[in-house]
Each structure stands twice: as C-alpha cells, then as structure tokens.
C-alpha cells in the first residue's frame, strides 16, 4: 500500500485551473477541486493496466455508425 497522497493546496489547484482554462471558477469551486483531485488521482492510479501494449482502447467513437446517431 502506497503512502496517502498529500492534498494539493488551493494555490496549486488555482494554478492548474488557470493553465487549463478554468481561471473563472470561483474560490469555493477551486476549493472543491482540491478535495476531488485526490479521488481522481486515486481512481487513475488504482486502475489496473492491461498487460499487453497491443491491448488497444475500446472503439470509442464510431465513424461509421449503424444509424444517424
């Protein structure tokens, strides 16, 4: 079991938000991002990785749908 991650500071999340076009989020929503960021990173870290590099993603977006989606 790895060490629990430290929660990012509000300043770190504010900088992240600015880099990614979310600079207009109000402070309370940035604060919420600091809480959510740990959950999101944990989900990503805990997801098992396919063992074979050839295991490609699911065909995510159809280019020849069977009806006019």
């Amino acid at each position, binding site marked *: 079991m790895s060490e629990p991650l430290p929660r990012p500071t509000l300043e770190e999340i504010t900088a992240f938000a600015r880099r990614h076009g979310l600079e207009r989020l109000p402070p309370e929503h940035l604060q919420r991002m600091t809480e959510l960021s740990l959950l999101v990173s944990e989900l990503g870290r805990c997801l098992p990785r396919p063992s074979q590099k050839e295991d490609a*993603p699911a065909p995510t977006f159809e280019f020849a749908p069977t009806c006019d989606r």
Partner: protein
Amino acid sequence: MGDPHTSQPLWAQSASASIRMLRGGQVGARQLTEAYLARIAEVDGRIHSFHHLAEARALSSADAVDREIAAGRWRSPLQGIPFGVKDNYDVAGLPATAGSRLRSGHVPTRDARLVADLEAAGAVLLGKLATWEYGTGNGGEYFDLPFPPARNPWDTARFTGGSSTGAGAAVAAGTTAFALGSDTTGSVRLPAAACGLVGVILPQGRLSGRGILPNCYSLDVPGPLTWTVEDAALVLDVLLQPSVSYRRSVTRPIAGLRIGVVRGPLGRFGPPDASMAEAFEEAIRVLEQQGARIEVARLPMPVSDCFDVTRLIGPAESAAIHEAELREQSRDMGFALRDKLLAGSMVRAVDYIHAQRQRRLMAEAIDDLVQSYDAIITYGPLRVAPRLGIEPEMTAFTVETVLTPFNLSQHPAIVQCTGYSSEGLPLSWQIVANRHDEATALRIAAAYEGATPWRTMRPTL
C-alpha cells in the same frame, strides 16, 4: 371510461391494451390523451414527473389521429398512444432545459430523431419529463435545481432512480403510457427498477441519439421505459422496424433456452437486499417451470471493477462535452453536475485511455460469457428504491448495481419488475442477450411477466 373488461381507468392500462381499444373503436385518441392529461392534473403535483407539459400540442395531435382513424388510415401500432420524453431530448418549439438553469430559454427548432419517428408514427407527445441536470448525477439529490425532484409513485418519500427520473415516475403513475429516457451507466434501468417498470437499452447505434443532449459519447444510449414487455416490444417495433416483429417474438415459449444465472462476483458492492435476492431466486424458478435450462454463470470480473472504469470515462467525457459551461457558468450548476465536471477536468488523458483499454478487455470477456448462453440473468440494482435526499442510500442504490458491465460491453439489456418488498417497493432483475438478439431478452421477460401477477398492481397515489 376504462377498459370494459377490467374496469381499469385508461391511464392504468398498458399501451398495448389501449391500442387494442383504439383499433376496436372503443376509445378515440383524444379521449385517451385527455385521460392522461386528467391523470397528470390529478397526481403530478405529488410526483413531479413532467418539466414541461404540451397540452395543446397533444390534443391537436390526438385530433389529427382521430381524423386519420375515421378515414381508415392506420399509420403504425403506436398511433394515438401518448408518450413523454426525458427533458434532454430536443422537441421543436418546446423548452429543452435538461433540468438545468443553464439552459433556461433554450427552445430547439428540430426534433430529436426518436421523437420525430414516434410522432411520424402517430404517437402523441404529452411533454418533457423530469431529469437530473444534464441527464447525469452522482446518485445524490441536492434540491438545488430549477425543478422539484420527481418522486417515486410507490412511495413519494422515495427516489425514482436517475437520471431518467420523470420517465420512471410517469410510466408507473400513469401520467404517460410510455417514455423515452437515456442511459449511460443505468439511467434507463435504474428508474425502471425503482418504479417497477420495463426498461430497455440496446447497443450504441441501434437507436438514434441525434437531438439528445450528450453526457458521455462512448456510453450514452437512449431507451424506452414501459409498463409491460409487450409495450417495450411495440415501441421497438416502431423505432427499429425489425424484419420479425418483437411483439411476435415475445409470444414464443422459452422452453429449451439456455440461460446463465449470474449472482456475482459483486466485489465491494456486497450482497443484495434480502428481498431482492429472494425475488431473484423465485423468478429463476418461474423460468425453470417453463422449461428454460438454467445454469450457474459468473461475471469474468467483479462488477465493482466495471463501475470503477466508468468513473474515469464518464466524468472525463462530460467535462469535455460541457467544458464551456464549466468555464463560464459553474455557479449556475447544481452540485452534482458541477462536481462531476470539476472531477472530470482533472482526469489525466493517460488514465482515460487506460480505462478505455480496460473497457475493451472487460467487454470482450463479458461478450464471451453472454455468447455461452441464449441470455444471462443478473441483478439490476442491489437495493430497493432509497429515501429521497438520504445521500448514502441514494448513492448506494445508484452505484451498487450490476448494470454498468453491459454499458461497457454494449449488450442489449432489460430490467423488469420481479415483485414487491414487504414495504411495497418494486424489486427487479436484469436480462441480458447477445448483441442483435434483444428479441430473446424480450421473450424471456415476457414469459416471466405472463406467469406472474405484478402487472396487475399499480401504485396508489
């Protein structure tokens, strides 16, 4: 006036029974529409199934149907049947809020493809049905949206299941004959389960998503919610026009069908409610008595692992779809949508791609399982409808299900009622068929429904 054979009010009949009366000249489309409008006036203040009612449009459509019938012109088997659509479907000239103050004043100029198809078939649109904001949510209810939350007609203190909340409430309460919802990780099947209905999803591309506000490009599917299996077959007959009608398929006996019964592994979701488990086992016996060959089967991975994959895919795609609103209008969103988009904005592209890689492996393994049988049967939700506003109960109901594996794998799936708990709450299971063989799932569901008394019971409001 109701069905003279059962003395049921018109709104309490199945759509199929209403069609037989229309065809027999025992009722007209206007009379039928007025019966639903009267039912809405009577009970919708308690269940809030509708966001927008289109009364004048519905009566005008019904009058047109009556004129056609009088002239001997039958357009389709849904001609004259009232329906509603989740408020994330576009309908030209009607507000399309998707349950959000972000879209107040938004009125589309085109119909969603499925709405256009149903109206072309002569079905009568009653209006737009309640939904969680943008057709998504985290399971909780925060009472922070511009519309009151829909309430479960079986117990108005309880949740309808989301996100097609109004569709579930409306079909159960008889404020519409059938409804269209949309499902990303359960949003058709959860309200069908909580409200004691039939809810159907098909693989992406079978039913058009055009004109439906997207939530997750790679998982979204539309689907009908109906009172009976025959009604679901009827709606799919009209929308898909199969070479062999689904209504004919559902009458075939199930003797000899190989059905895999999947009880797990459930992973960290824990065991189902006792009432759900008892009804599940009893329902299996009903199929056995009809000659189905029941075999024990097992999901190739814990169901909670499937849910974890969707927790990366869903929020990331939603954050991409609704990026502009999050940037500019996050204060105007309800908590559930905003929280999802904030989280989705932080999902790494690398993790999203790994989630889609895992999804592919899971889908292939699930497909191998389903292909071993004519169909498999699983739990749907593991819990009965929770109390509205009790967040842990609502989240458990929404999350702890066996629904997401078949969103990932894109198999046709049906949830149907398997009875009622001691508190009078609907119980349910899920039938999953091979791709392009939804007729077999409908056939099994119809055989079960025909052998049980659950469709004779409507909620008391």
